[in-house]
């Protein structure tokens, strides 16, 4: 069970990451590349949360129901980190989309192969 969860959940996260990476590396459409980066980020965030999980842990919130009781809580640090990472990912995606808009306006295409005025 442990083995399965390890590979299953990590594997899902990695699958997402690699999927995103694949899109970012292979797809020619700028928007798809941005989506790929987004998916890559999501996979990474999932990985973060997964790594922070502790078996049979509850959410790290001392609500009145758990105060005083001896409960296992999951590691709160990755959750805090992932919050930051999500926001940063959001910011990057927004900027990327804005750049795509600019590029489309200038080149009238979203094919990354046709956008290489700057080279060598």
């Amino acid at each position, binding site marked *: 069970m442990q083995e399965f969860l390890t590979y299953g959940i990590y594997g899902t996260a990695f699958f997402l990451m690699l999927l995103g990476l694949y899109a970012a*590396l292979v797809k020619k459409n700028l928007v798809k*590349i941005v989506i790929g980066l987004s998916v890559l980020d999501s996979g990474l965030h999932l990985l973060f949360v997964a790594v922070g999980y502790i078996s049979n842990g509850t959410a790290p919130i001392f609500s009145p129901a758990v105060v005083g009781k001896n409960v296992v809580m999951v590691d709160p640090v990755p959750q805090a980190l992932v919050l930051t990472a999500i926001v940063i990912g959001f910011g990057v995606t927004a900027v990327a989309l804005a750049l795509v808009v600019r590029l489309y306006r200038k080149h009238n295409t979203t094919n990354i192969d046709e*956008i290489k005025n700057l080279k060598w």
Partner: protein
Amino acid sequence: MNSLVLLLLIIAGGALLSYFGHRINQLLGNITVFIVALIIPIYWFTQVDFTETVSLTISGFHLEWGYNMYGKLFSMIVMILSPLALIYAIGYMKDQKKLATFYFSFLFSILGMTGILMSRDFVSLFIFWEIMTWSSYLLVIFFGKDVEKTGIKYMVFSALGAYAMLMAIVIINNNTGSMMLADYFTAFGGFSLQTKLLTGILLMFGFALKSAVMPLHVWAPGAYSNTPMAYTSVFSGALSKMGIYGLGFVVVNLFAHANMSIVGDVLAWLGAITAVLATFSAIFQDDAKKLLAYSSIAQLGYIVTGIGIGTELSVMAGLYLAILHAAFKGVLFMAVGAVERQAGSTDMTVVSGLVRKMPFTFFASLIAIIALAGIPPLGGFVAKWMLYESLITNGNFLMVIMIFLSSTAAFLYCYKFLFGLFLGQQEPEFDHVKEASPLMVVPMILLSLFLMVTGAYPGIVLKYIAAGMTNLGFHDVSWQMSVLTNTWGDSVNFQHIFLAVVVVFVAFLIFLTWRGYKHSTKVSTKDISVSGEMIKPEDNMTYSKDFYKPFERVLQPILKWKINKYYDEFGKGLEALFDFMRRIYTGNGQTYAVYVITFLVILLVFSKSIFGY
């Protein structure tokens, strides 16, 4: 204040003052330059205390400045030739643009040379070397022609030489823990053979490059002829001697005394080959500047040969030739500059018969040519004599033949130079030409007087050379004021020869003039008989054209072999390679991302060999 520091400050201050003087107006600038040109040698000869040293620690490096007799010897070249050239420049560069930059760079290169000769450690040697290099670079491309070709070539070769030196310096520092020249010399014996060769050859590479030794000479013809002539006289006369200075202490101090004379021999051979090939090239130049440039290379070849052999006599010959070369090449470049300025061209197929128009220039050139060709009464003869003698005693007969061949061939270009520019018939288009201004003539005359005096009394110079050679490990070098003795016991007194030759020459001159006036008929240069061929107006029928045509035909196979071409091909190959390499930046963002991933994969796969796990 320490006189050495003050000397450097005077030169640097002079550079700045001349710069700002010329920014304000030309007259003020010229006066400043003139005063600076006088102050520098006067200060050096009267005020500099040669026993003083300066030592300072900068950035963890110990720097030390101080003269030794060897450096002083070379400093004399710099301190006599450069001020004269500066004064000459005032006349030569009159009404040119960007004079501020010119004099600034000029004085900074003097600063560089002065500094090199007083450096006792490699760091300051290198610093001054680089200052000298970049200031001379600015002058090489001063007129803006051939910036790309000549200028870049000069800079590339200079950089190669300087960086070779730098590499040697840091390796020395690694091995001795010190940057002092003296420490290197003492520690040299204890190095492994590999380190000995590596450091020594790298240093030699740097120095040999500045003295235009054979495979490294390709920058010189262009650089010498492109530079304003006022500076070329210093460039060829003094700056190239910095290379000789360095070669002197590397070859003689290290290899000759460490039983590794093979290195010196190789250098000597290179010098001899340089001398022969450069002489041949000089013969077929139509541009007087180029001719002198090649001749400079050839002369430097002799000097290098002398130094390379590394015996007492040969080194003495080399050093003596170095000093003479500074004087006569100084005169010749100045003379060509004067012709250029007055007649508007230095092409020997165009300019001719200026002897009547520019008698003083002609006189100075004549003296210099005599010295250069090694014709008896003047110093060149003495120097070459000593060189032959040292080569013969050393058993290098083949080298003697080569040097002799090149000296003889040198007569051809000497004659061509004099004849092409000054003798022969004067074209009407040069009727307006006048003698150059006194500012230009006086330095030439002074230098040629110096040549005459050293012809009669070589001892004046030999005294300093002998003193300088003590720093190369030759103690008690014998010399005589004006008597040349050889190892076989013959001796010749130079004063007598000098006087005899002068008397005969003057008498002959009077005779010729007298006869010449009686029997000459005036014809135009265009009055040439041709057998049935039509001469078109654009055909250049001047007698200086194809001066040595038959000879050229004989030497064709040798001359075709141009090392320059190989360098050019190599450069082109490199550019193509660079162009190929930069294709890696394809411009496609995705490709860059793929590079990142590829790099990651490579690292992951090879992590075991990189990190051991």
